[in-house]
């Protein structure tokens, strides 16, 4: 088991965002976390990536308790993430962004007196990832000049450039046109196979994507795991369909809108507010 959460609870003040969540992710799995707004999905991602400490319970990555380990150290240990809201380096080019990730992975960030331009290994690996994500043609463009979809790809690509063993994607296809979602998922799955990523965890709203690509689905509701199983089992679970997925109406699944918890950082972010540590 590469990642394991045991009985994780997280409070915001008196509000219980996560309530005794236990889950595990094995080698080779693509696990989707679904649930209505305020179900605790992003809180869970933030706890799994060590950004938030659980109020109680424990998270283990490759057997290490990640408590207090820090995001940077966790990335070096082999866990990478992308963000729900696009995170890029506005004044770095596409290739520089990927080079930064490669430099980090190879532990070359403390090389002061060598030329980055002459580091063929860093350059090759960055180009390789750029090609995987279809960004090679835009490699000299500044990140802030990219279209929204490309920014999203760059964010995810830079996480892949770390060649992580586990990658957590917070809504990798949100804000992207429906037609492009499948293309992005194909890229992600292909890239993860290519770099030898052992498992992917994603938070996703689009049920076509969720059921089309997941090996396992974890349904969250009000901070609890409502169901955890293969796509077929989830689809057959009337309770999950009623509370989380919604009845297919007019051919497409509809997401029920649960009341949004005021202190949930996910919805706070969505309203343009800021969460500590997420400038």
């Amino acid at each position, binding site marked *: 088991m590469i990642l394991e959460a045991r009985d994780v609870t997280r409070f915001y003040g008196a509000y219980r965002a996560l309530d005794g969540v236990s889950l595990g992710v094995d080698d080779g799995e693509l696990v989707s976390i679904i649930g209505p707004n305020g179900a605790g999905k992003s809180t869970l991602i933030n706890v799994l990536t060590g950004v938030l400490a659980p109020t109680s319970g424990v998270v283990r990555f490759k057997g290490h308790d990640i408590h207090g380990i820090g995001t*940077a150290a966790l990335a070096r240990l082999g866990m990478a993430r992308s*963000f729900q809201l696009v995170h890029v380096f506005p004044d*770095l080019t596409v290739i520089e962004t990927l*080079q*930064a990730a490669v430099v980090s992975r190879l532990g070359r960030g*403390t090389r002061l007196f060598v030329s980055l331009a002459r580091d063929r290994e860093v350059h090759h690996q960055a180009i390789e990832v750029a090609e995987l994500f279809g960004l090679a043609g835009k490699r000299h463009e500044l990140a802030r000049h990219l279209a929204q979809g490309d920014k999203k790809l760059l964010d995810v690509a830079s996480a892949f450039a*770390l060649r992580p063993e586990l990658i957590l994607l917070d809504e990798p296809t949100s804000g992207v046109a429906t037609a492009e979602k499948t293309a992005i998922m194909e890229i992600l799955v292909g890239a993860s196979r290519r770099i030898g990523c052992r498992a992917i965890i994603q938070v996703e709203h689009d049920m076509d994507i969720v059921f089309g690509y997941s090996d396992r689905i974890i349904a969250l509701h009000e901070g609890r795991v409502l169901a955890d199983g293969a796509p077929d089992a989830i689809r057959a679970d009337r309770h999950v369909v009623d509370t989380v997925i919604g009845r297919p109406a007019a051919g497409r699944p509809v997401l029920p809108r649960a009341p949004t918890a005021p202190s949930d950082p996910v919805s706070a972010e969505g309203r343009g507010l800021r969460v500590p540590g997420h400038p």
Partner: protein
Amino acid sequence: MKGRAILAAVALAALVVPLAAPAYYALLMLPFMAYAVVLLGLNLLFGYTGLVSFGHALFVGIGAYTGAFLTTHTAVRSLEVILLTAGVLGAAAAALVGALCVRYVKIYFGMLTLAFGMVFYTFLLKFYRLTGGDEGMRVLRPTLLGIDLDAMPKTDYLVGVLVVATLVMWRIVHSPFGLCLRTVRDNPAKAEALGLGVARFRWHAFVISAVYAALGGALLGPPTGTVDPTLAYWTQSGNIVFMTLLGGFASFFGPVLGAFVFIFLQDSVMSVLTYWRLVFGAILAAIVIFAPGGLMGLFARGRAA
């Protein structure tokens, strides 16, 4: 390579101008080149790492007083030894101050650096027996490679130090380390997610910039033969930030250009107007509002790369 061409042009100008220009302007080149060294370092922190220090006069002061102390209290006259000692002391002080300051960003970082700068200024002012108080200290004439500085053209040794400092800084900003600093500037949370320890990179940048400030400070003393606490006063920190903004923190040579313009402008405005600070204030306001990229930004667009 566009960068190399600029580099060569600057080095050439630094060598030729003192020879061709009237002696008085050649004299002004002395503080310019010392400040240019300071600013190369400050901009590693400001332009490349995104941290604005209002306390770098602290390190300028350490460098300047190192030269004064060594030449008046010991038998040391060698500029090499003075520069080396200044660099080491600047690094040591910055390692401590930086360890505290880099935990904070934006205005808190600025205020904390300012506070440390003021502590050092007060130390220079009050520890009279050691520092000479507000009268300052003398800097006895140093030697370079065993040769008396007066025996060589006045600016040559400064040009030499500036060129070496420029080449080393050029290498640093174009290294993998330099790239990591820019990720920290652009998006610290994302840098952390990529496994780059933000606090550590800020600290390294702080220490390197302080070494440059100390070296520049050590170069300020010999031409005038004295140092005094105003070198470490907060207005000095303000001046070097002003020079950086004037030239443009977004480009490698912007701050150096800023130092040049500042020194010559200050000299010419001061000679005709008592209220020269008024003029400088207006210039600063105009730059911030109309040309946030500084003088270099007027020529070329784009950030430090």
